[in-house]
C-alpha cells in the first residue's frame, strides 16, 4: 500500500509529476547512467554545462556520467516509431555555478519527438504549465519565440552578433541592445522593434496583440498565428497557470529554435522549469522530426529551502 510518509518530499513530487504525465499519454523512459564520453564531446554545444564527469571503463573506453538527458534520448530513439511521448526522472551529474564541484542532481523531464502536429507541441507546453501547479498555486510560465528574435536580427542585418544581442535579451538590457545596434548602424525602426520585444512582459493574449501592432504582418505572420493557436489551445484546457509572453528568456538561441519557456514560482529566486522546441537537433537527412521538451530541477527547489 502506498504510504506517503515513507517517501521524501522530493520523491512525492516526482510521483505527482509522473502521474500527471501519464494522464496525458506520456510513458516513463529509463536509461543507463553512462554514455561514451566522445558522444558528449561531439555535442558539447548543446550542453548547458561544459564540464563532464568521466572515467575509464574496464575495456579502456572513456565513459561519462550523464550531464544531460535529452541528448541520450535522441541518440537512443527507436526510429521505427513515428512519435515519442516520454518522461523521465533521472540523476544528472553537473558542477553548478554555486558549488564548483560535481553533484548528483535529480531531474524530471518530458520530451515529445517525431512527426508532430501543433497540438502535440502545445500539449507539451500545457503539461509544463500544469506541472508547475504541483509546486505552487501561483506559478507563471514565461514563453518566448526565439525564431522571432532570430528573424528580427536577420532583418536588421545582425545575424553574426547573436551572442551580444542574446545577452541583452537575457538581461533585459536596453543599454546593451542600443550599444550593439548603434555600433552596427542598424535602422532606427528595427532598433525600436527590437527594444519593444526586449521590454515585453504581458499575459500571452495581450502580448500577442502588442506583437501584431509592432511587427510587420507578413514576415511574422506564421509566428503570430502559431502563438495565437497556442493561446487558444491553453484557453481550451482551462489552465490555472498564468502564461506570459516575455522575450528575456531565449537561453540557447541556437538550441531552442522556435518557442522556449521557463516556469517560475514565488519564493524561488530562479526558474525551476526550462524547456523549448529543439527540432533542429533531431533533424536528419532522412527524417524531418520535430521535438520539444522541458526539465524540472527538483534539486534546485530543495536547495533554495522552498520545500
Amino acid at each position: 500500500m502506498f504510504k506517503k510518509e515513507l517517501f521524501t518530499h522530493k520523491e512525492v513530487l516526482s510521483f505527482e509529476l509522473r502521474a500527471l504525465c501519464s494522464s496525458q499519454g506520456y510513458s516513463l523512459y529509463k536509461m543507463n547512467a553512462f554514455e561514451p564520453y566522445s558522444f558528449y564531446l561531439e555535442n558539447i554545444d548543446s550542453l548547458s554545462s561544459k564540464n563532464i564527469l568521466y572515467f575509464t571503463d574496464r575495456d579502456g573506453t572513456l565513459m561519462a556520467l550523464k550531464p544531460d538527458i535529452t541528448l541520450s534520448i535522441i541518440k537512443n530513439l527507436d526510429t521505427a516509431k513515428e512519435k515519442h511521448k516520454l518522461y523521465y526522472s533521472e540523476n544528472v551529474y553537473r558542477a553548478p555555478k554555486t558549488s564548483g564541484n560535481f553533484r548528483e542532481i535529480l531531474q524530471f523531464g518530458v520530451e515529445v519527438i517525431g512527426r508532430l502536429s501543433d497540438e502535440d507541441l502545445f500539449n507539451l507546453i500545457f503539461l509544463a504549465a500544469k506541472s508547475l501547479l504541483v509546486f505552487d498555486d501561483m506559478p507563471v510560465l514565461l514563453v518566448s519565440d526565439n525564431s522571432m528574435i532570430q528573424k528580427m536580427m536577420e532583418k536588421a542585418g545582425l545575424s553574426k552578433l547573436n551572442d551580444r544581442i542574446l545577452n541583452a535579451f537575457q538581461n533585459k538590457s536596453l543599454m546593451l541592445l542600443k550599444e550593439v545596434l548603434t555600433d552596427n548602424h542598424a535602422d532606427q525602426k528595427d532598433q525600436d522593434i527590437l527594444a519593444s520585444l526586449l521590454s515585453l512582459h504581458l499575459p500571452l493574449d495581450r502580448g500577442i496583440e502588442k506583437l501584431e501592432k509592432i511587427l510587420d504582418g507578413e514576415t511574422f505572420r506564421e509566428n503570430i498565428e502559431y502563438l495565437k493557436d497556442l493561446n487558444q489551445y491553453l484557453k481550451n484546457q482551462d489552465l490555472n497557470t498564468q502564461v506570459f509572453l516575455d522575450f528575456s528568456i531565449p537561453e540557447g538561441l541556437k538550441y531552442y529554435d522556435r518557442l522556449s519557456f521557463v516556469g517560475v514560482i514565488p519564493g524561488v529566486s530562479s526558474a525551476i522549469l526550462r524547456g523549448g522546441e529543439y527540432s533542429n537537433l533531431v533533424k536528419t537527412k532522412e527524417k524531418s522530426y520535430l521535438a520539444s521538451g522541458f526539465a524540472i530541477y527538483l534539486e534546485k527547489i530543495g536547495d533554495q529551502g522552498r520545500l
Partner: protein
Amino acid sequence: MKDGLRIALPKGRLGKKACDILSKIGYGCDEMLKESRKLVFYDQEKGNTYFLVKPSDVATYVEYGAADIGFVGRDILLENRSDVFELCDLGIGKCRICVAGERDFPYHEKKHLKVATIFPNISRDFFLSTGKTVDIISLHGSIEIAPLVKLSDVIVDIVETGATLKENNLTVLEEIFAISARYIANKVSYTYKNREICKIHELLEKVRGEGND
C-alpha cells in the same frame, strides 16, 4: 509587515547617491539618513526593506532573491556575470575600466602581459578579444603599486579622473569600456512584483540626467 520590495544598496559613495535618487522619486527611507551602523532598514509606510551591503555583493543579493532590486556598478555585473535584469542606467558613478601602466611601457608591442587586477574575468575576456595572452594576478586593492614593484606589467582598474594614476606615475594605456551604476532586478521578482519594479524604473528614467552625478 507589508510584502514590499527588498532593496539592496551599496555602502559608501554610490550608496549615498542611490539613496538621494530614491528620495527624489519617493522611495527614500528617512532612517537611512541617520548616522548609524545599522545595515537593514524598514520603511513602515511603503513596506519596503533596504539592505546596505558591500558594493561588490549587491548583484549577488539580487540574483539569489534575497533582494528584489538593487543598485550596482556595471563593472560588478560584468565581473560576476550576474544573472539579473539590468533595467536602467542611473547616470551616476560614471567612470572607465582601463588598462594602465608606466608611461614608457611598450604595451602595444607586447604579445604577453602580466596583469594585476580586481577584475580577473573582465581582464581575461578583454585580452582574449585583443589576441594577447595574459597571466592574471588577482589583487583586492591598491592595484597601482603592482607595476611599480614589478609584480605586473600593467593593471586593469577603474579610472575616474586619473589623478591616482598620475600620482603613482602611471597612465591609461587603453580604455576597455565606460561604466556607471545600474538599476537591477531579480528575474523572478520581476514577474511577481512587476508593477512596483516597473514603476521605479519609470521614475528613475524621469530623474536620470537631472544632475545626479
